[in-house]
């Protein structure tokens, strides 16, 4: 018995590996369990190999599965594709298609099952039936989840599917093998959402009424969901001809008062560099939701990486203030999105959210009650005598009028301009306006000190990381701190303006510092150096390419190596 299990299903297109994972995840969410579900695909557009991994736990979890306790393999050649990415537990139980012999060097408890013979059209559900009793997964919940998933199928198909599930249970009962089983107490059902879904909900919650976007993996779900929901909520969603037009339309909509957003991934964000500068200079709120994938260039569209950081921080010629936020997990994708709107609107500035494929596309359980967040509004100008659109103010924010407002008309532009918005090439105006625009960053920094801190005070090692890496780091802390080590972590959720004072205090409090990131060129580390004092002598960096998600073990090893305690036994759960 264990408080958690992880299972993985590997197959080809049509095998329904991913659907099976969804069903398990939803069933467990219904029991109030904590779940994190991830998927992976081969290069084939469809019909290629896919794998789906579900980690289920009675206690809160923050990272995708580490070692797999139970594995279903429909074809070994498909498994081979993912072998690198799937860590198998010592005593893993493997249910494989009887007709396909396992490779000779395959370790684990190997159990052949005639999936194809018994349920040629519902192999995946049959497999769930086998897994459920062995792992102690909720049988009724799984039946419900199957019905929910196939709600649109005919009664006959549904009946056949449920029968396959029961056949699986029957098979399991005859098996002699012992798998890791789950022990838990049933709780309030949880939502099961992906980061993209949470972000779309966050946008709607924040009052977004305009979305424009261009499809791109792994962000398209936001386009799909907002195309479905905005028209219901009195808003508009537009698929544009390209990303330049998408951000352009967002700026146009926002100019007339709408809360507006676009969503994209690296290549699209690159194309938005010029428009970003316009939003910043004309001081028109805009939210740019960017889901990072493997780069550079077209890179690896389906995998996660943290390498759009520098582009997000610095793209666009000239001195262009912008805000950069980064969610830590699925639920946080909701909060950060609302914050993005709040900051964009309150400070009339472009806000880039840097999510990543791992957060965006993994499904995670969250408490429905957690999805609340204060919503802020724009500082509007209404019929001000002698209205000056860019009037200088202590925090740099000038009241903004919107078309339709009489007596507060203005003509704006991306040229340097004076308080009225008149183009000016004068140095004095330029310096004053640069100062005004950048002053907003100070104001935001003062108000939005968004970060998370985990672990004990005065740590031996203080980890600094961001975005999806924080999940694995948080779990690594739990493991590492079980002995006498004192490891802590600081995770900024706002990257620009960076909460530099808080971060510096953290760094100063640490004996050693470890920066962790999924960027080959160490973008985060370089950025931190530019913003705070990070003494070389006490700083280590664990940076590598994305394309494989950060594991808890990887982090634990890095910390131990740093402290020279490699020899220590593993204390993994």
């Amino acid at each position: 018995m264990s408080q958690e299990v992880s299972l993985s299903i590997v197959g080809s297109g049509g095998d329904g590996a991913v659907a099976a994972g969804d069903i398990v995840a939803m069933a467990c969410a219904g029991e109030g369990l904590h779940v994190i579900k991830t998927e992976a695909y081969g290069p084939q557009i469809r019909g290629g190999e896919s794998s789906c991994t579900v980690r289920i736990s009675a206690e809160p979890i923050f990272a995708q599965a580490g070692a797999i306790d139970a594995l279903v393999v429909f074809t070994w050649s498909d498994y081979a594709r993912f072998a690198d990415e799937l860590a198998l537990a010592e005593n893993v139980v493997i249910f494989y298609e009887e007709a396909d012999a396992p490779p000779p060097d395959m370790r684990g408890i190997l159990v052949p099952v005639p999936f194809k013979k018994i349920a040629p059209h519902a192999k995946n559900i049959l497999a769930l039936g086998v897994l459920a009793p062995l792992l102690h997964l909720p049988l009724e919940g799984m039946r419900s989840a199957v019905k929910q998933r196939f709600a649109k199928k005919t009664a006959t198909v549904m009946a056949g599917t449920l029968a396959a599930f029961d056949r699986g249970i029957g098979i399991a009962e005859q098996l002699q093998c012992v798998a890791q089983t789950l022990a838990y107490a049933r709780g309030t059902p949880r939502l099961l959402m992906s980061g993209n879904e949470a972000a779309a909900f966050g946008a709607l919650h924040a009052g977004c009424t305009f979305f424009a976007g261009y499809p791109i993996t792994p962000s398209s779900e936001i386009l799909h969901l907002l195309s479905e929901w905005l028209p219901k909520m009195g808003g508009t969603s537009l698929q544009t001809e390209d990303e330049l037009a998408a951000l352009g339309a967002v700026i146009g909509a926002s100019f007339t008062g709408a809360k507006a957003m676009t969503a994209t991934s690296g290549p699209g964000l690159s194309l938005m560099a010029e428009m970003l500068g316009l939003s910043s200079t004309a001081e028109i709120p805009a939210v740019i939701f960017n889901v990072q994938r493997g780069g550079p260039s077209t890179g690896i569209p389906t995998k996660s990486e943290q390498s759009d950081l520098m582009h997000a921080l610095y793209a666009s010629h000239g001195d262009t203030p912008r805000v950069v936020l980064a969610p830590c997990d699925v639920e946080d994708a909701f909060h950060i999105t609302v914050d993005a709107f709040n900051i964009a609107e309150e400070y009339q500035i472009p806000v880039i959210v840097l999510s990543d494929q791992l957060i965006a596309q993994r499904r995670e359980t969250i408490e429905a009650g957690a999805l609340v967040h204060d919503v802020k509004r724009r500082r509007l100008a209404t019929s001000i005598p002698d209205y000056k659109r860019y009037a200088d103010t202590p925090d740099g924010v000038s009241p903004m009028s919107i078309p339709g407002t009489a007596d507060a008309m203005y003509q704006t532009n991306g040229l340097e301009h004076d308080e009225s918005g008149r183009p000016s090439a004068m140095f004095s105006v330029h310096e004053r306006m640069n100062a005004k625009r950048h002053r907003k960053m100070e104001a935001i920094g003062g108000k939005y000190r968004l970060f998370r801190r985990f672990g004990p005070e005065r740590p031996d090692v203080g980890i600094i990381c961001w975005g999806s890496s924080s999940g694995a780091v948080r779990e690594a802390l739990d493991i590492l701190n079980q002995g006498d080590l004192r490891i802590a972590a600081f995770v900024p959720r706002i990257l620009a303006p960076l909460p530099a004072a808080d971060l510096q205090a953290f760094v100063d409090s640490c004996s050693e510092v470890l920066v962790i990131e999924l960027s080959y060129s160490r973008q985060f580390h370089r950025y931190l150096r530019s913003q705070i004092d990070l003494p070389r002598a006490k700083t280590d960096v664990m940076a590598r390419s994305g394309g494989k998600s950060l594991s808890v073990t990887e982090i634990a090893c890095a910390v131990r190596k740093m402290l020279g305690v490699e020899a220590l036994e593993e204390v993994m759960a």
Partner: protein
Amino acid sequence: MTCDATFTAQDFKTDLKPVWCPGCGDFAVLNSVYRALAELGCKPHETVIVSGIGCSSRLPGNVETYGFNSLHGRALPIATGAKLASPELNVIAVGGDGDGLAIGGNHFMHTARRNVDIAYIMMDNEIYGLTKGQAGPTTPSGDKTKSTLYGNPDPVVDPCALALSFGASWVGRAFSGDVKGSTELMKKAISHHGFAFLNILSPCVTWRGEDQHKELRAKMRPVPAGHDLTNREAALRFTDEADDALTVGVLYDVDRPTLVDQMAAISQRALGPKGQPPLSQFLNAFAPQHIQ
């Protein structure tokens, strides 16, 4: 578009001095804009003029409405966003030939295709004015310019022909020197339900020479009586005229659903008979359901 208040052409002037060269055709375009807005009775604060970058794109700064001199080539996406988010506004896009046909050509195509309900006024001087005289898509083939010292290698395009192929529902051509004619055409373009494209030939005295004015005026002739405004093939013929002819007037005018109409219809379909759902309904798809 609300058009009931009374503002004079004078009311539409800002006190910013235009930056154009003495003799530039754009002054006349600006005058026509003032007059058209006044004569249509447009309310300044419910009007938005969006432009790109170029000499011509400086125009919004001189018009007392909401104005936005944006980025080179990007007026139309911004105008689209403005119109879709606030359909009650009168949205006008203006810009140069380089702005709209070179760097901005793709947005021209898609904005016309979608029939976004805006008027798009292209101030066409057959050259890149602001950057000091390089060839653009409307520069005659063979012409020597700063960037084509040995003659422009590219064939010239007719902006109205493109607008027609892109699916614009209203297409007109004007000559800026003819302020009265331009004003009337602008009024029609602004009043049109859908995407209205008005190409205004507007001489650049600095880079196309002082004669462009005279030449254009000499070529100008009205759309012949009997031209069927709903016939695209017929309209296209005016875009492939002899060198000595420039037909001005409305070339094409049809009514079809605009993007605003389409979005309204989509909203209707999305809402269904039950009307606006509570936002919490969004979460249903992500909640485990107990199904017997």
